[in-house]
């Protein structure tokens, strides 16, 4: 796409989902906001659905990632084994690099 944001994350990067609650059409589920995960893959670059939903062009297009989260990080009382994960597609503008421990 001509008008697209460049990808800033790579496979394996640790990220944190923005904890924001804007009004309107948003594809980042509530349950994953503020959670920490790892980039599993770059899915491609797509028109921004938050703009498309209101008949706007959706540019600049946003990189879309699949982000892998440990279930125990998402649900503190998760009942299953520690290796279980949930993977969610998240647009780049919802992701920040996880801050390194000092």
């Amino acid at each position: 796409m001509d008008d697209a944001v460049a990808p800033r994350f790579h496979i394996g990067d640790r990220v944190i989902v923005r904890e924001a609650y804007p009004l309107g059409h948003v594809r980042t589920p509530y349950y994953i906001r503020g959670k920490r995960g790892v980039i599993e893959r770059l899915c491609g670059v797509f028109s921004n659905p938050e703009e498309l939903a209101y008949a706007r062009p959706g540019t600049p297009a946003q990189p879309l990632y699949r982000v892998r989260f440990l279930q125990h990080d998402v649900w503190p009382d998760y009942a299953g084994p520690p290796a279980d994960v949930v993977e969610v597609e998240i647009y780049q503008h919802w992701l920040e690099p996880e801050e390194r421990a000092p």
Partner: protein
Amino acid sequence: MSHEHEHGEEHPHVHRYPPRPDQDDTLTYYRAMEAAVRELLIDKGIVTAEDIRRQVEAMDGRDAGRGALMVARAWVDQAYRKRMLADGSAAAEEIGLDVGPLKLVVVENTPSVHNVIVCTLCSCYPRMLLGLPPDWYKSRSYRSRVVREPRAVLAEFGTVIPDDVQIRVHDSTADMRYLVAPMRPEGTESWSEAELARLVTRDSMIGVALADRAAR
């Protein structure tokens, strides 16, 4: 029930249940909008009523047999399996399945990983390969619970996943659609691709069941 016979056996059994309301008579906001847009498109000559009917018929006519063809091919052809896992859309097209603009991601079950798909935001589903989704897939209960307690939900489907197998829940929140490639059942080494395809059920490709020799 005894009360039906209180007036004697000669009395004809007339069961007068209260009339049930029709399910299709409520013109909701979105039904009105759909009808208005459809009629405008027809009036302006962009599509015909026949086009719409054909498309609905085609959508209703698709079933999980399409996805099963892909999985069975991957079971018998390692090179195809690799291409399918690398690019699901291209692998579907390779065997003549039109997936349109769909971005298909195939996730493979192994002895150490079990995958299950959901769309927590709405009901995204690989319709081009599985047909229309089952009602439960669209239910708030499945959508909210399978991300939070997948093992309990799978157990309610009769699918108990051992604790040493990782569960990966795939929430299709955006532009990808997911298809689970179940594991090939043991004891099917001599089976033909067509026989194998019959084992690959809809539910096994959503991930709430396993492919099972009993499915044949």
